């Protein structure tokens, strides 16, 4: 049973006077615990696909099922509740709230879950520990480096124990060394915590850390052979 399943998904939007269709009859299955990277040139709809899977954008047609829930049929408020439970979102520019400490930023998603304060604090502590920032919990984002900020963003994405974590260019705004550290962290979280990950990137080296690589080209999703990066197979 796949954790993420896209069936015949189409998505278009209007840009100026032109209608762009980045996703044309896309099918995709991601199994539990898989780490999938999604590559493609700019403007091909990688982020759009990510947004559709995480329920912050709506399909034109087709069906998306995540962890047994058909997200394409949920209302806006039910989608919000579902996201709080099932999806972790890692942003390119970490999107931390500057007036909250690292701890409070990580705690934000847990406030939406029905759980005791003790359990909430335990989860936040564990998430910060998992990203190696337990000693920076009381720091504000302005007191952290770019890499540390992204780690806090990752802790926030995993703190609710979501079934799926989506990451939109998670290393896009980092230097090479920090980017490598974040890649290692994502790989470790995928393997140790068995989190299903879908990551958008335009960087082939970053994409290489995934167990499965996909390429989005002209609205179609293509599977890239891990052993022979140049070779693709229809997805």
């Amino acid at each position, binding site marked *: 049973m796949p954790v993420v399943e896209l069936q015949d998904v189409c998505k278009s939007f209007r840009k100026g006077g032109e209608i762009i269709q980045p996703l044309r009859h896309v099918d995709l299955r991601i199994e539990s615990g898989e780490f999938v990277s999604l590559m493609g040139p700019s403007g091909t709809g990688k*982020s*759009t696909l990510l*947004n559709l899977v*995480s329920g*912050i*954008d709506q399909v034109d047609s087709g069906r998306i099922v995540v962890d047994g829930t058909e997200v394409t049929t949920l209302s*806006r*408020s039910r989608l*919000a*509740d*579902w*996201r*709080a*439970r099932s*999806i972790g*979102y890692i*942003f390119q*520019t970490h*999107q931390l*709230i*500057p*007036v*909250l400490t690292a701890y*409070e930023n990580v705690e*934000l*998603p847990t*406030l*939406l879950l029905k759980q005791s304060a003790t359990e909430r604090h335990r989860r936040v502590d564990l998430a910060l520990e998992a990203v190696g920032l337990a000693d920076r919990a009381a720091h504000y984002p302005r007191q952290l480096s770019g890499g540390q900020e992204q780690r806090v963003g990752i802790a*926030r994405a995993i703190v609710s124990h979501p079934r799926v974590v989506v990451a939109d260019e998670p290393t896009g705004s980092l230097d090479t060394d920090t980017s490598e550290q974040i890649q290692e962290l994502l790989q470790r979280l995928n393997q140790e915590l068995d989190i299903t990950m879908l990551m958008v990137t335009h960087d082939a080296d970053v994409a290489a850390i995934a167990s499965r690589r996909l390429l989005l080209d002209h609205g179609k999703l293509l599977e890239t052979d891990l052993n022979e990066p140049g070779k693709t197979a229809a997805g």
Partner: protein
Amino acid sequence: MLLPWEYGVRNLFRRPIRSLLTLAALATVIMLVFLMVGFIRGLEQSLVISGDPDVVLVYSVNSEESLENSAIAARTPELLTSSLSGIVQRFGVTHISPEMYLAARVRTQDGHSGFGLVRGVKQTAPLVRRSVRLLEGQWPGPGEVMAGQLASTKLGTPVESLDIGRTIEMEGQAWRVSGTFAAGGSGYESELWCNLGDLQTAAKRQDLSLVAALLEPGASVAEIQLFCKQRNDLELRAIRETDYYASLQQYYRPVRMLAWVVVTLVAAAGVFAGMNMMYGAVSGRIRELAMLQAIGYRRRAILTSLVQEGVILAAAASLLAGAIALVFINGLAVRFTMGAFVLRVDGVAILIGCAVGLTIGVLGALPPALKALRQPVATALKAV
């Protein structure tokens, strides 16, 4: 589920100068509201307090509502006493106060001058005007006046100009200030009281303006009104004092309406100030608000948090304005045609001021918050 309270509070410190300026603007607006409501409450209170339900005023039927224009026969008090039974009598003294009431130009010893309200009374006046209390000095003797504690405000002169022992000039005669009196916030406090005979002599008049009579408990004003109708040669009318001041309240209704319009306009200005601040605060946080939606916060929760920010700021401004109003505005004397009264920042004024403040907070925050949340999350996440 709502966002943490700290989020709303700390957001106000993101742009401290902007928040501080908005706080100052809102506090000014709410202070103006306190000022206007204090004015309305003071005016209303002054008119309400001025009326005693047990007192009946008898004055000329031709004077409309203006006692200054009233002229009735000097023998009216005797006629009323001998013809009516409902007027209070104690130890052989009838509680009836013949009075001459006029507006006169008053010049003080230090050269200031203004129009004052002068009431010529007899020793029986305090028996009928029961709110009058001598604060210092003594009851006016020949050639003396007793000044109400707001009389200087009515004249537009410094308070010291009516200190005991000072001399004033009115009706072509010099008068010495013999004492100061209070009257529980009623209109008498803006008047100068002197001996009736002295005023009649100075004004070269022998008539009276009115007669005020204190009724026995349960006595009806109808008996006096009937007397006035039967003795139509005297051209008198009788009215309960509370009804007289109620009719004055109607007279000042346009003033109060205007004051309420000003309150509304000032409050609207406050809403725009609040809106301006919140537009600025929200426009820089479009991506942050989208992120909150992306991680599962409902729009309503985010909207509540943004409104919370506006309300916190408005509440702080209300508190600040309330404190300043209580210290500097409450009790401030104001001059107007009928006399003078003090601005009253009472419980009602505080309630109205704070309600206006909170409304400003809510209405100022709602449109920017709604605008920010209307954007699709996917688009807002990419906003610059």
